[in-house]
């Protein structure tokens, strides 16, 4: 057990948590924006995958890391916009359309890589760029915190900044206020002149862009290649973090960090005698419990009228 505590308290581990949590934080905050606007974005996974692939491919062929990153984010946004069109213009079920788009991203990325590079696995044969790691001048010199907070990838810092940014956007701006109104009661929002569909479109686009940023971190952060189905369910973990975080920006941020910590821990504990599968299951179990507790609280708080009619009907 002491060995486990030692692992958890090491600076290398805490730095790893930030690194592992980066895509979760970004995708979860993106998903939160869409969720609060009343559209569940199941296609986070597909956005990440499309972004990871487009980033590596464009960067590899153009030789420009930044152009690759930009195209990656654009690809992530595109998937979310397809979801928006399917949901808002064609009246499709958001969940089912999201599943379809995840499949589309999985198939299309693998197809594109195979068609361009004749490689089933990924873009390892194509030299592409990585986004820079940043050493922050003063923080770098602080004994322990410096090793954790400095020398991370650019995207990790963007993830850390995106939490206050999303909190500000959702809770402090007029746009955020309208967005939440749309999510809670679209009819009421429409009746006071809020353009519901436009706000939902924007929310989904933003959510796709953030998921896209998460995606390029995977293929352009610490490695410089795209691998088939590289996201490996991270979009769904992000979705869980949204609910574990109680649909609040900071809650979601810490929930995503928690998922990152559990994953980093599972990797570290592989060397010790603690089963990694069970450690990595903890956040999912926590999410399930949190989901039930939240629902239970909501139910016991909800208006008594609704529940009595239900009881009478029963």
């Amino acid at each position, binding site marked *: 057990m002491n060995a486990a505590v030692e692992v958890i308290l090491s600076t290398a581990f805490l730095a790893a948590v930030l690194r592992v949590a980066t895509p979760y934080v970004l995708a979860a905050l993106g998903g939160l924006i869409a969720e609060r606007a009343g559209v*569940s974005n*199941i296609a986070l996974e597909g956005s990440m995958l499309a972004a990871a692939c487009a980033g590596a491919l464009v960067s590899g062929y153009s030789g420009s890391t930044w152009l690759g990153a930009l195209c990656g984010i654009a690809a992530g946004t595109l998937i979310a916009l397809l979801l928006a069109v*399917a949901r808002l213009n*064609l*009246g*499709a*079920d958001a*969940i*089912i*359309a999201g*599943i*379809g*788009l995840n*499949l*589309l991203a*999985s*198939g*299309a990325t*693998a*197809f594109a890589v*195979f*068609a361009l590079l004749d490689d*089933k696995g990924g873009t390892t044969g194509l030299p592409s760029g990585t986004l820079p790691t940043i050493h922050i001048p003063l923080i770098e010199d602080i004994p322990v915190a410096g090793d954790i907070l400095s020398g991370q990838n650019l995207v990790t810092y963007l993830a850390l900044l995106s939490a206050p940014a999303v909190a500000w956007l959702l809770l402090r701006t007029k746009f955020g206020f309208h967005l939440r109104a749309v999510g809670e009661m679209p009819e009421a929002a429409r009746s006071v002149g809020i353009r519901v569909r436009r706000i939902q479109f924007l929310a989904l686009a933003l959510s796709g862009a953030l998921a896209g940023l998460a995606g390029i971190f995977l293929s352009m952060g610490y490695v410089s290649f795209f691998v088939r189905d590289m996201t490996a*369910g991270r979009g*769904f*973990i992000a*979705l*869980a973090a949204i*609910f574990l975080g109680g649909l609040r920006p900071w809650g979601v941020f810490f929930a995503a960090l928690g998922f990152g910590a559990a994953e980093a821990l599972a990797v570290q504990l592989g060397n010790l005698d603690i*089963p990694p*599968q*069970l450690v*990595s*299951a903890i956040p*999912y*179990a926590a*999410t*399930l419990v949190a*989901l*039930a507790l*939240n*629902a*239970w609280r*909501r*139910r016991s708080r909800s208006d008594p009228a609704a529940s009595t009619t*239900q009881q009478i*009907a*029963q």
Partner: protein
Amino acid sequence: MTDTMVELADRRDFVASRRRALAVDLSMALATILAALAVGFIVILAVGHDPLEAYRAMLTGPLQRSTRVGRWLEDATTLTLLGLSVAIPFRARQISLGAEGQLYAGALAAAVVAIFVPLPPVLAVLVPLLVAAVAGGAVGAIPGVLKARLAANEIVATLMLNAIVVRLYDYLLNNQLKQPDSGSVRSANVPAGSALTRLQDWFGVPLGRANLGLLLMLLTALALWLLITRTTLGYRIRMVGSNPDFARYGGIKVPRVIESSFIIGGAVAGLAGAHLLLGVYGRLEPGMAGGLAFEGIVVALLARNNPLVVVAAGFLYSYLRVGGDIMEQQTDVGTEIVVIIQAVIVLLVTARLLPDLLKRRLARKQMAR
């Protein structure tokens, strides 16, 4: 008992309308697949390969050898069971994404019973099947109860349960259930008495791993179709799915119906796990189900959740999967195109693009008349 003329006519109309609905569902599924194939055709053409050659390999390949037919039958069995498992909750308008976890729970429970509990013949097959259904149903009950009693989001709950059960499965497979003398991670083989008989033992032609599970699947589909169309519970499930408020005012206990739909779906997914264990692999292996659980959703959607149509959609869809593998071996077009076709199917179905087109055409025809 004599029926009046009016009653007879009424019943005739009813039967005819039901038959028409089945025909529409079937032709819609076929039309959707054809439309998706057309999209795939254009994509293959766009990247400069020969779509005709690729499609010839994909569409004729599965029937060319009996082993390939066997592969098709075996794959269609699992896929259809998974499609059926989500079609039932879908019918009650519950979006259950939990088939994966339910499948692994079923396989796990069946393996424990088959390997460790000595049973007389026949029972050695039936008991593991039953245990798998119960285990799958139990895993399905959790999100069902959470949704029905607490209104907790069933999508998140089922996804979480998938993650938990899959990890538990991996843990047990790597520790307690691991075959010690084997280099790879796998369980001991289930005893021969528990295995589902391979079809090739009956027909005398090599049919790969296709097995008696096929029959089990067909019976399950028939039972579920009867459940949905002919029983009170099925009626309640349909009512809750089409209008929960109306169902509630009509005196239906909505929470109980929702729970039932999840439990039934879970039990069927558990059977899919048992099929993989007792019929296909003969033991537990890591990642046994692959991505099949999500593909089951496609099949259910394609069939518009009608159990009998799910069977047809399962066979059609599985044919494309098996054909896709053959296409990849024989031509320079990869299996990824099948995933793209699948995605187009899902989007076409949920956006209701084809039905709307069809409706418009029908309306025009009626106008002309």
